[in-house]
């Protein structure tokens, strides 16, 4: 069953999403995202498409299936999906309830997604299911911090932030491990808050 609360939250955010994140944040993160996405190979699942701000960072000529929980976000993403120079589809789907077959994808990519998935370990376990054994999960995510005083600040702001958008204090690396992935590489982009995570679905 689709998570209506999360869907409603991101439907509400869709109208302002590009205004808040489309210029400064995207320009700042673009070199790091391009580096991560440049390793796309085979059949790729991209979670979550949002308004498609990440699509210009994708290398051309790939086979990408995008999903997002919010129909309003996907409406905004349509022109960017259509402009992608490769094979790309985007559909409304909840990560907790994906109807893809087991082992359907060679790789899964996420971008600022697991700050918002309500049950991150269950969501990551669902991604492991749709990955082929030995398939790769690559994430660009923001997490909580262990560095004082930013750890205290993120914890203080989180109760407000989680109602409007993302959670700010998640331990996504631990969640990836708890979902059964083998974490191969973690690279801090900004402090220990914004990071890339590379993990492998263990062979069956």
């Amino acid at each position, binding site marked *: 069953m689709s998570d209506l609360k999360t869907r409603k939250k991101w439907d509400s955010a869709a109208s302002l999403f590009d*205004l*808040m*994140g*489309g*210029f*400064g*944040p995207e*320009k*700042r*993160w673009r070199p790091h995202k391009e580096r991560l996405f440049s390793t796309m190979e085979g059949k790729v699942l991209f979670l979550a498409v949002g308004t498609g701000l990440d699509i210009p960072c994708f290398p051309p000529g790939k086979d990408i299936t995008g999903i997002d929980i919010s129909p309003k976000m996907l409406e905004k993403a349509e022109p960017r999906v259509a402009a992608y120079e490769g094979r790309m589809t985007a559909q409304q789907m909840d990560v907790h309830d994906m109807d893809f077959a087991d082992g359907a994808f060679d790789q899964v990519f996420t971008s600022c997604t697991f700050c918002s998935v309500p049950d991150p370990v269950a969501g990551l376990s669902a991604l492991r299911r749709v990955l082929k054994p030995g398939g790769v999960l690559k994430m660009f995510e*923001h997490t909580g911090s262990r*560095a004082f*005083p*930013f750890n205290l*600040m*993120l914890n*203080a*702001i989180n109760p407000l932030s989680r109602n409007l958008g993302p959670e700010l204090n998640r331990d996504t690396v631990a969640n990836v491990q708890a979902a059964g992935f083998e*974490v191969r*590489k*973690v*690279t*801090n*982009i*900004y*402090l*220990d*808050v*914004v990071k890339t995570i590379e993990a492998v679905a263990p062979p069956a």
Partner: protein
Amino acid sequence: MERRVYFILGDLLSCVAAGAAGGWLTELAHPGACFVLIGMAIGMVLGMVAGMVAGLLLSPFFGSLEVMLPASLSGMVGGMVVGMMHDISLMDAAGIGAAMGILCLAFSYRLQARLQGEVS
């Protein structure tokens, strides 16, 4: 480390604006001569709120958490320092807050240099 001039100037602007707003707001709301720890606590809360608002307003131009975290810290520290002071003008309070913003940006850049890169 961030090397693009546009973003470095944006970081500086954000922290100076957030610190100044935190200092100014704290002085505006300060009950005058009060126990130094109470003034500091008032400044911490008001400054952080002012810093967050400044960070949110400037974030679309200069970056997300790279702007909001140092800006919130700048507002908080600016508010705390001004909260411990007595009999200063609003202009001085904003100036002190702005100076704290520069220090907070330097702190966050130093922390970034230590934490960035591959960790596992």
